[in-house]
């Protein structure tokens, strides 16, 4: 049984069908990439999985439970965390606090515990602080722990967003163009990071605009164009697919 499975998922916005009858599986432990030109519907797929949108039709099954129509916070609690194409950090909170917010779903302190700082809350704060610091150490941001998130350089912000998503120890991590807007060296660093995330045991579904970037690290690739899947397969097979080349270079090429 695949970790995540989309069955005939369609999403229309008025007259525009952003995702058309999409079916694919994400096996646990893999890095699966979703690629395609601008406006192909990649981010919409993430928004459907995480519950921002309800599919017009089709089903989404995660860990053997149907999740379509769940609120985003419930989807997160079930173990799907994401990053955003345009960075969405909590700017006026520290780097450490951002990661701690990411741990929200792992924590159990109720309002009562928080207000009175009960022994349970104290213990949980301590262990969460430790886990968050360890994660920051791992991702290379620990020296910025007390810095406001907005003060980090852009590439570091991308990393922080990933750390925040990893903080709740998700089963599936959705990365929406994590390398967008970074320089070539950072891009390579981020792709290495994606691999080491998988090595931590987290399954990764990766959106990338730039086909070349993901070829080296993906186990399997799905190519979207105008909402439809036009090809899927191992990176090498997809790279040479005629329809993929056309979609990327335009029909005239």
């Amino acid at each position: 049984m695949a970790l995540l499975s989309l069955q005939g998922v369609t999403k229309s916005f008025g007259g525009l069908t952003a995702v058309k009858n999409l079916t694919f599986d994400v096996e646990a432990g893999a890095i699966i990439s979703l690629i395609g030109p601008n406006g192909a519907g990649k981010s919409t797929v993430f928004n459907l999985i995480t519950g921002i949108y309800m599919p017009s039709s089709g089903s989404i099954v995660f860990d053997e439970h149907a999740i379509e129509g769940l609120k985003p916070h419930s989807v997160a609690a079930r173990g799907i965390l994401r990053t955003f194409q345009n960075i969405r950090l909590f700017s006026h909170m520290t780097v450490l606090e951002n990661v701690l917010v990411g741990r929200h779903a792992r924590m159990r302190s109720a309002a009562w515990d928080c207000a009175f700082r009960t022994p349970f809350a104290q213990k949980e704060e301590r262990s969460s602080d430790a886990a968050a610091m360890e994660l920051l150490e791992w991702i290379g941001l620990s020296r910025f722990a007390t810095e406001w998130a907005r003060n980090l350089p852009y590439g570091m912000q991308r990393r922080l967003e990933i750390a925040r998503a990893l903080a709740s120890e998700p089963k599936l991590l959705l990365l929406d163009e994590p390398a967008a807007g970074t320089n070539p060296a950072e891009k390579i660093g981020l792709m290495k990071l994606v691999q080491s995330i998988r090595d931590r045991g987290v399954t990764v579904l990766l959106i990338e605009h730039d086909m070349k970037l993901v070829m080296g690290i993906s186990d399997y690739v799905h190519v979207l164009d105008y909402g439809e899947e036009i090809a899927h397969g191992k990176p090498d097979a997809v790279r040479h697919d005629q329809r993929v080349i056309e979609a990327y270079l335009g029909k005239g090429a």
Partner: protein
Amino acid sequence: MLNSLVTWLPFGLSRYTGRQVLFGGFIVLALLLLPIVDSNSSHVSAVADAGYILLLAFGLNIIVGYTGLLALGFAAFFAIGAYTYAFVASPQLASPAHPDGYHVSFWLMLLVSAAVAAAFGVILGAPTLRLRGDYLAIVTLGFGEIVPQLFQNLDKWTGGPDGIAAVDQPVLFNYHFGFNPTPYYYLYMAVICICLVLLANLRNSRLGRAWMAIREDELAAEHMGINTMTAKLLAFSMGAAFAGVAGVIYAAKLSTISPSGFDFNMSIMILAAIVLGGMGNLSGVLLGGSIVAMLNFLILPQASNWAHAIGASVHSTFLMNVDLTQYRFMLYGIILVLVMLFRPEGLIPSATVRAELRESMKSPEVA
């Protein structure tokens, strides 16, 4: 040395540096001594009244400062707290069966009114909190107008515009608070200290971070597993609870309440206090609340007296009769505009906040 001593302090005080704790301790000591040093009871009363301003500012700070929800009619919760207490601690609801009305303990009602105000926070919040920004502001503004109106018009129970008189005053171990401001002064101090501890706890907790995450980016917060609706309802009800407590002490100290004490101006005054001090920052809220309260209760009345004296000596009838307290809302308006133009982060600037956060990293808990 000082700093290592501080790490042993309870109530999360270990977060602060030795200097911060010393400074805070000095202020607390000065405030404790004030009623003894200054025997003018109108001064003590004025400083005591700052207590409810601060409590209201604390409550509104949870909603506006931490969670980023612009709620305009906050005084409604203050009114609900005050009336809840007045109903059951005065002859107001006298009936043949209870010819003296009800006289429930003040101390019990501190908690009950907090709970009632919190419940109204949920009742108001549940249908409105999915509204965003300006819409929420308008709905809460409406609520803030409706509540005092209701208390004014349901005169069969509420005494209408005259309000409720002969509200019971607290009794502690046979000590009657009466109309002497000093015991209220100390009561406010105690309650404020407790509330400060609660606020600081919340600020550095799972819930407090969820609130701030919602303020920063609600969609991203929701994607981190935060049930934003629940968190916002908690912010509303906890903020309202602070106002409920403030209402009880306010009603008891005056021993009489009327709807006019809870109008829109009160809501704006509290908003001005937290904007002035720095939203979301506890020291800022303390400072802003204190400044606004002192302006309101001490400085403007005093300045009026000076103006009268000057007027008498220069034979100006305008100055002799001027009542500067009438201009206070104009003053708050000016404060709001100036702060927003020149210091949108409030008096206690973000650098201080950052330094504070930096210090918090030095505590052994994190290392």
